[in-house]
């Protein structure tokens, strides 16, 4: 005859068996969900590759022929009016290409597949070519554009993907171009060392409309724009600053907006100096983030 204790043990054993079965089923469910997630991610990756391919392939003949007309003269000489039209076509191809690149960059950052081709470069080499490429953007609004490089910083080397860092600087400056006033616009790139933290600090400052304090938190988030009417006026995807953040963080750096700057917008990012021996301290490249 079963004692009360036996009955209790039996009851508890049954309960445990049920719990075990439930756990086993839950584990199976999670495994299935995980497999489904992997399949979805792979399908998403294939889809994004296909989108990139389908959007960029038709642009190739447009880009090549317009460049052949404008750069090489292989297809004959154009008069001034034809040149203007051809430039318009080429610029719009570039805009569409940049749009696709931005979307793909955000996706690559999202899945951790942004490929960095890191090499040791001198800060002055990094900035020089970038500035000359950006200079033509200043012409329409007659913007005063200058670079202020601290002499010690110019000789410093950083390990980075120079194309990607140029992309960051270019994105920041292009944003500034959109927001400075039509008259007396000013954009400055300042480069200085912070030896205490073993970093070199890049700051892009403008005298534009500035970032409202309450919106600063969202500034580096994907798809976020301070004012959506800006998109319609200036174009752009609202992805530029999110891409900047991803690229700088992939380099072990930080990017931030100076909330205390009242004369416009000031955004800084810091990159580790080659062979530096940080002494500690506040690593944030700017006064606040």
């Amino acid at each position, binding site marked *: 005859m079963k004692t009360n204790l036996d009955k209790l043990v039996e009851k508890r054993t049954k309960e445990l068996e049920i719990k075990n079965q439930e756990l086993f089923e839950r584990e199976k469910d999670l495994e299935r969900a995980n497999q489904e997630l992997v399949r979805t991610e792979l399908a998403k990756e294939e889809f994004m590759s296909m989108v990139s391919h389908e959007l*960029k392939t038709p642009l190739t003949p447009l880009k090549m022929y317009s460049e052949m007309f404008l750069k090489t003269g292989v297809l004959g000489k154009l008069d001034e009016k034809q040149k203007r039209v051809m430039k318009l076509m080429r610029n719009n191809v570039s805009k569409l290409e940049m749009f696709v690149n931005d979307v793909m960059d955000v996706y690559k950052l999202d899945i951790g597949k942004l490929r960095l081709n890191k090499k040791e470069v001198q800060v002055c080499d990094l900035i020089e070519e970038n500035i000359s490429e950006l200079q033509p953007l200043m012409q329409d609004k007659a913007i005063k554009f200058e670079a202020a490089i601290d002499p010690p910083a110019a000789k410093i080397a950083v390990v980075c993907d120079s194309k990607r860092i140029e992309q960051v600087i270019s994105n920041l400056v292009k944003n500034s171009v959109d927001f400075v006033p039509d008259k007396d616009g000013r954009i400055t790139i300042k480069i200085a060392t912070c030896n205490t933290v073993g970093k070199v600090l890049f700051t892009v400052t403008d005298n534009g409309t500035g970032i409202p304090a309450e919106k600063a938190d969202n500034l580096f988030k994907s798809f976020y724009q301070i004012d959506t009417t800006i998109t319609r006026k200036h174009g752009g995807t609202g992805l530029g600053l999110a891409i900047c953040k991803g690229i700088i963080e992939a380099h072990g750096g930080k990017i931030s907006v100076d909330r205390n700057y009242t004369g416009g917008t000031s955004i800084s990012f810091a990159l580790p100096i080659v062979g530096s021996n940080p002494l500690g301290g506040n690593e944030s490249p700017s006064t606040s983030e």
Partner: protein
Amino acid sequence: MKILLIDDNKEITEAVAFYLEGADISCTIITDGRQGLNMIKNRNDFDLILLDISIPGFSGYDILDELREDNIIVSRIIMIFTASVLDEERIFSYGVKGIIKKPISIDDLQAAIDRFKD
């Protein structure tokens, strides 16, 4: 200089060939992956091979796989055309010399030509 161009997109092959013709460079165009592989295997007089990675059917990857299986070293001369930005690691794993991203620019194409001219 002799270039082998393997790409199924006729508009692209025409544009590339047009540019190469202007630069006085001989260009053989193949639009089918298997034929492209045979051409690479049977002729070794090309100074540069431009290969599109996403040819339908027998793709650029299939060509690279077969070449690798046959121990044919391709790194000396192959540049890859690709519009995808997610497959760079995979492409470089074959030891190819470089990637020309679509949409192809004249500057990138000329840089590849200059690299293999001599």
